[in-house]
């Protein structure tokens, strides 16, 4: 059976870290182990924690997004990502459903910042006002801010599931939610 992808076609793949996640999903992607070596020739990695690019590029084929949208910078970033990406994948429970970062929502941004930076501080406690992005009132799943094409739940999703999704995308197909993967 012939593969659905021309092996000379390089997929531009972006894997940004959100600021509200553990990176467990990225680590789960790396848990594909030596299969990464096999698919490496098919991929151009154009943005993410494993590459030293500072700006999110235009014309990205697939972006795999980890993490909830928690700060103003996250919000700006996800809108930029959506505008510059053909297929957006929400990877992991933080991106899909809010998950652990959203546990702060019932307390509100001020209460969590006060606890961390003032009540627990012994020296010169202050809530960061410069450089560090302001928290949004609530930490939210990606699809509440922008349309998402593929959802991959799990905390983290298993490596086999991630590899199945990746293989489908490299073959030019959107994974079907009703199919069994991994």
């Amino acid at each position, binding site marked *: 059976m012939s593969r659905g992808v021309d092996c000379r076609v390089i997929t531009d793949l972006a894997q940004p*870290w959100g*600021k*509200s*996640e*553990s*990176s*467990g*999903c*990225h*680590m*789960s992607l*790396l*848990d594909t*182990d*030596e299969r*990464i*070596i096999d698919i*490496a*020739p098919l*991929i*151009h*990695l*154009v943005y*993410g*924690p*494993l*590459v*030293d*690019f*500072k700006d999110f590029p235009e014309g990205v084929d697939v972006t795999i997004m980890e993490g909830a949208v*928690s*700060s103003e*910078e996250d919000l700006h970033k996800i809108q930029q990502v959506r505008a510059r990406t053909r297929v957006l994948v929400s990877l992991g429970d933080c991106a899909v459903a809010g998950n*652990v*970062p959203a*546990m*702060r929502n*019932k*307390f509100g941004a001020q*209460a*969590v*910042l006060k*606890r*961390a930076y003032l009540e*627990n501080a012994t020296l010169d406690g202050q809530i960061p006002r410069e*450089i*560090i*992005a302001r*928290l949004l009132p609530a*930490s939210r799943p990606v699809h509440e801010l922008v349309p998402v094409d593929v959802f991959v739940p799990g*905390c*983290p999703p298993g*490596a086999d599931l991630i590899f199945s999704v990746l293989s489908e995308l490299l073959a030019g197909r959107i994974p079907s939610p009703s199919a069994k993967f991994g």
Partner: protein
Amino acid sequence: MAQQKIVIDPVTRIEGHSKISIHLDDQGLVEAAYFHVTQFRGFEKFCEGRPFYEMPSLMARICGICPVSHLIASAKACDQVLAVRIPPNAARLRRVLNLAQIVQSHALSFFYLSLPDLLLGKDAHPEHRNLLGVVANHPDMARDGVRLRQFGQSAIEMLSGKRIHPAWVVPGGVSSPLAAEHRDCILAKIPEMLTIAGRALDWFKSEMEKFREEIRSFANFPTLFMGLVGENGGLEHYDGQMRFLDAGGRVMADYPDAS
């Protein structure tokens, strides 16, 4: 020359999130430098009101690269809340899990994060200066790194049932024993892993000639040192005390105090 600010954003190939800002005065000299940790989620607050035995698995989510560290630290705190001494085998199993994590995290740091710069050159284009560039140009080294990290991760999986964010470490010990076949599987892989680590270290040492200038100047100033030590002052990873050394290697203090 006007004052300038140099911003490195994001800092990539680290286990975490950060920005760096360097302030230059009007002579162009560094007058201040800051390392900004740019991620904040609020664990300190949102754990309030939750059952204490949830904490180990919740704290694992602080980091997907070192969830085991947070899992174990939290479980140890829970042990103290319960005022229990855990079974000796549970302590040994937690130690093995911790060591497995050290293997995978160090493999990640060396092969996936640092090696692209060391191997392909700091001035290589970011398009190639990454893990996939190592795969393309030095596939044997890439495979070594993948296999070493895989060994740590699969040991974690064999012990705890899951590679990332396992639930196995609990207040009072661990929730299941290590099966004999898993133990044998882990032991059987160690010779190959030692060979890989040895090969990486030999290569690293031989490469240092190229980095004489960096070694001489980068972060090369007197500092204190801190680490976990056991009873005889040897390296500890699970228990022990924090020991502080001065720049000459003399012990300044232990915490908590041994007396």
